[in-house]
């Protein structure tokens, strides 16, 4: 049995005959949310770069990935992990991102007080990230998986200059896009495995 098969989730065993349809619906619903937020995350990043001034948004602009303590991009090995473990990591990251996006929103309110659409998108993204994180946790709980590691409180550099604030926001919006898309993929995997 390949290592992959050993990791597959047998949804039937995790739920009674009566609750299986409910669990299935919950997974599909969470997947749809992740899919929706994936497109929102793309729009957020585009909107974000438009308000930071050149060179943000220019094709040549590819800054090194700023370290955000407490949160990294999904590891290359992520896709090789058991599905439930991947979903645990997704949930933790999404909860961290909710705090980060809220912080970026407040920082941008000083820089771009008139950019109401950007500010609203950042605020929405913070709530939506939290909502998706919670939804994934509900699925995990229903599957009997222990909750993931508590999300470390992200620490931002002290009195960062304005340019660092812009870079940080750029990085966080990028991370949000990565993790939402990763969550969508992991839920697709769960559906393939569990729902056949």
């Amino acid at each position, binding site marked *: 049995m390949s290592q992959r098969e050993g990791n597959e989730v047998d949804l039937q065993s995790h739920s009674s005959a009566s609750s299986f349809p409910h669990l299935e619906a919950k997974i599909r619903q969470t997947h749809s949310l992740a899919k929706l937020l994936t497109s929102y995350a793309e729009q957020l990043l585009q909107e974000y770069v438009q308000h930071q001034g050149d*060179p943000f948004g220019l094709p040549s602009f590819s800054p090194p990935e700023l370290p955000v303590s407490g949160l990294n991009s999904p590891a290359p090995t992520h896709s090789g992990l058991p599905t439930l473990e991947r979903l645990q990591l997704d949930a933790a990251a999404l909860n961290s991102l909710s705090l980060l996006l809220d912080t970026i929103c407040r920082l941008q309110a000083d820089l771009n007080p008139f950019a109401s659409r950007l500010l609203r998108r950042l605020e929405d993204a913070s709530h939506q990230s939290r909502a998706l994180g919670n939804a994934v946790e509900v699925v995990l709980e229903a599957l009997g998986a222990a909750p993931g590691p508590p999300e470390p409180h992200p620490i931002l550099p002290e009195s960062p200059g304005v*340019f*660092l604030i812009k870079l940080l926001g750029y990085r966080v919006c990028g991370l949000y896009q990565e993790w939402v898309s990763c969550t969508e993929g992991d839920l697709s995997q769960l559906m393939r495995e569990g729902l056949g």
Partner: protein
Amino acid sequence: QKRGVPHDLKCITHNLKIWDCSWEASYRINHGTTYEVCIVNSSYSCIQTEKTHFEIPALSLADHEIKISSTHVSGNSVTKFILSERNVSLVPATLQILNLTADFSTSTLYLKWNDNGSAFPHHSNVIWEIIVLYKEDMEVATVATFNTTLMGKDSVHHWNWTSDIPLECTAHHVKIRYYIDELHFFGQKEWSEWIPLRISGSPIKESYEVFPRDKVVPVGSNMMFCCVVEETVLTAQYGSEKCSLIPLDNKSVGIKINNITISPSSGTNVVFTTRSNLYGTVVFAGYPPDIPKKLNCETRDLKEIICSWNPGRPTGLVGPRDTNYILYERFSGRNVTYKRDEEHMNENHQLIFQMISGQERYNFTLKASNPLGGSEAVILVDITQRVYPHTPSKLNVKGINSTAIFLEWHLSGNFANINLFCEIEINSAYSGQELRNITVKGLETSSYHVSVDKLIPYTMYTFRVRCSSEKFWKWSKWSNEKQYLTMEGI
């Protein structure tokens, strides 16, 4: 020259009071030679010394004979010199520098020093020269020359200079010297030596590499930005514009931007790129606040005064750099601060000032300020002459008889101390439109009643009312209309 015989006698003075003289001994045997220095035909006693210099009070302008007798085991000698003020050099003493500090946020150096004037017998003109050198090749950044006068007492002098390169970008070396142009001195006058100064206080160099950091500057400024990092900087850009690199120091490279244009609200990015990294800062180019235009103060209810104004030219600065407005009232000493209401960004700017019991005249000064400067506008008002009442509400009609009615309406506001001047519009298909004006005693947030007569029986009328203060400023808006059919005539 015989061994140990004094020659080349030289005298200097720092303060015209003491001459400090020294000589050369052609073959210096310091050990064991003693000297006796006498000023021939003078009241001064001779000086015994083993050194090759001596101090004497400044002598008169005439020639003086100095006799130096040297005694040594290997033999004695007597040497005579003719010394007068003309042979003495005035060399200013080393300065007592009080303080050289730097304000890194403005790239400004502040020098403060004491001219030691009390050591000088009388008023003298002094020329100061200050040089600042920077960059690795010690380029001259500036040379400042200016005059002061020694006043017989110690005076503290100040000088400040703003560098065109952020002080963090490259070491700045400052030195000062001075020259006392003493008119009553006939000897040689020379500059003091250069006194190198060290800047006290160092920049807050966190991990930050690009300077200046998040500076706010006037549109049109010329600026230098620099990146101080160990790596090799490959490119630099200002917004979307690529810039040529200017080497400053071994770890510092800069770019020069002239005539900066207004920034977007989040500032203009200045980015330096190395092979594996990217470093940046942001500059906010904007304008100081315009003088507030059309400053107007009026009241709707004689309880609150509403001052509104037009901010004039946009400054280009927002958020924490936005313009701050404070309304001061001179007579009461009170003030109110404007807080930009995030929701209504573009609405006219206005502030509400609570009226003060018993005070009718108000002397308002509206002060505007942002990081680039400030401005103000002033207005003096008698607020009872600036009443713009609210719209009359709850208009109601009651019949008295077939040709007269009672009109009643409500008006909020503390008008007890003034008279109101109201206008009633009476409309009917039959007699068209008629305006009647009445003066009513003002009340405290109350209903007002008037009777309207000379109407036509059994006729449909439409009434509405508006008010102003008797000292007219503005009409209120018209109240809603009220229709009424007068009674049938008997």
